[in-house]
């Protein structure tokens, strides 16, 4: 199963690397988001550092949605998904591979967006770099598990990519709240222990939904 997942992920990332259309639009979207959010508040009333965690996680979520939408859309042309399903790869392997490719996609967007956040919002990255990486990873795993499943469902509906945000965003609520709160706690220099309940919440979310979505995926593709 893990080998299948790896092969599928490599296939998706190769397509993404050769076309670069999805990742470029997500990157530009993330950068634009950072800039636009800055002007949505009065900078004399709210310090940019207070905005930063919220902006980071909203941009993270929405740019993630862009990648998730593409994940199964690329399998729609010429019914490529049928080929995938007919291949000897296991169903859960296909799901985990897709989710893994999305995880890499989200990570690449963050690798560019975080330095931009540091630059634009004067974000003191050095102080919290390592815990922030942990929060990012936990949040991205949950986001990709749920998002990949709903992406596979949304492409087969009449609404196609319009449906994904409607289905996925309520599921991202605990992720965004947990990640933004723990980031804010760390930023304000509170002891790390205060961020622990939020991190536990993120970890529990990941465990439940990676397992739940992997088990649910086969039900969404039977013919």
């Amino acid at each position, binding site marked *: 199963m893990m080998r299948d997942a790896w092969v599928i992920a490599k296939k998706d990332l190769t397509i993404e690397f050769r076309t670069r259309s999805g990742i470029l639009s997500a990157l530009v979207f993330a950068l634009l988001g950072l800039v636009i959010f800055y002007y949505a508040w009065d900078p004399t009333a709210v310090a940019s550092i207070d905005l930063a965690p919220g902006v980071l996680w909203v941009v993270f979520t929405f740019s993630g949605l862009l990648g998730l939408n593409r994940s199964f859309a690329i399998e729609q042309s010429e019914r490529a998904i049928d080929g995938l399903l007919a291949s000897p790869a296991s169903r859960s392997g296909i799901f985990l591979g897709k989710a893994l490719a999305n995880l890499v996609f989200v990570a690449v967007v963050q690798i560019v967006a975080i330095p931009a956040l540091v630059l634009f919002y004067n974000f003191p990255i050095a102080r919290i770099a390592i815990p922030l990486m942990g929060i990012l990873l936990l949040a991205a795993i949950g986001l990709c598990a749920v998002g990949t499943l709903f992406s596979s469902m949304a492409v*087969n509906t009449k609404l196609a990519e319009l*449906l994904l945000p409607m289905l996925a965003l309520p599921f991202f609520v605990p992720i965004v709240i947990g990640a933004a709160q723990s980031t804010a706690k760390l930023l304000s220099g509170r002891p790390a222990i205060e961020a622990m309940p939020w991190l536990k919440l993120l970890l529990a979310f990941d465990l439940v939904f990676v397992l739940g*979505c992997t088990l649910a995926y086969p*039900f969404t593709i039977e013919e």
Partner: protein
Amino acid sequence: MKTWVLSIAAALAVAGTVIRAIFFTPFEVVQGPAQKIFYLHAPAAWVAFLAFGLVAIASALYLWLRDERLDRFAESSAEVGVVFTTVVLITGPLWGKPIWGTYWTWDARLTLTLFLWFIYVGYIVLRGAIDDHSMRARYSAVLGILGAFLIPFIHLSVYLFRTLHPMPIVLKPSAPSLPGEMLTTLLMSFLSFTLLYAAFLQARYRLAGERDVVEAAADAR
């Protein structure tokens, strides 16, 4: 025929509860008449949770047994649940304005109810966006089950913010701290709303069955 019996019984029970709540139940000392909205708000919230719980159970059973009736049940219960959640979301702010001084506050339970509403509105939109019967049933069953898993997470995450909502009065470890007359009215309202849920569910379920018959006939032609 049977639909009539249940609907009329539910209508009478709700009317009786409302009359009792308005005319024969004493005012609460601090909140005055505003408190009477509880006899709508609390039972509507109970029915919403009941409805969504049953959606999850019917969804899981559908994926196991593949009986179309379970899918129709889940579809009907989700829709009725959204109606009752809407009632909760309307009556809550109406009470909140005189008592809390604001229609809306980002309190844990308000936020949870709002997101419940979003999840199951999404569920209904998902159903509307798929024509194929089997696919619609499987997709919505997956969402119905995952939605139930999501609820504790949303609850926990919004609860870690502070909560303003009144604590449970009836279902708590010690004895209910409500005067007898109010307690009777409240229990009556729970009972009559559950009856109302059953009546709505029955009507909606029958509609779903008839629709499937018509669609099957149209497909056969």
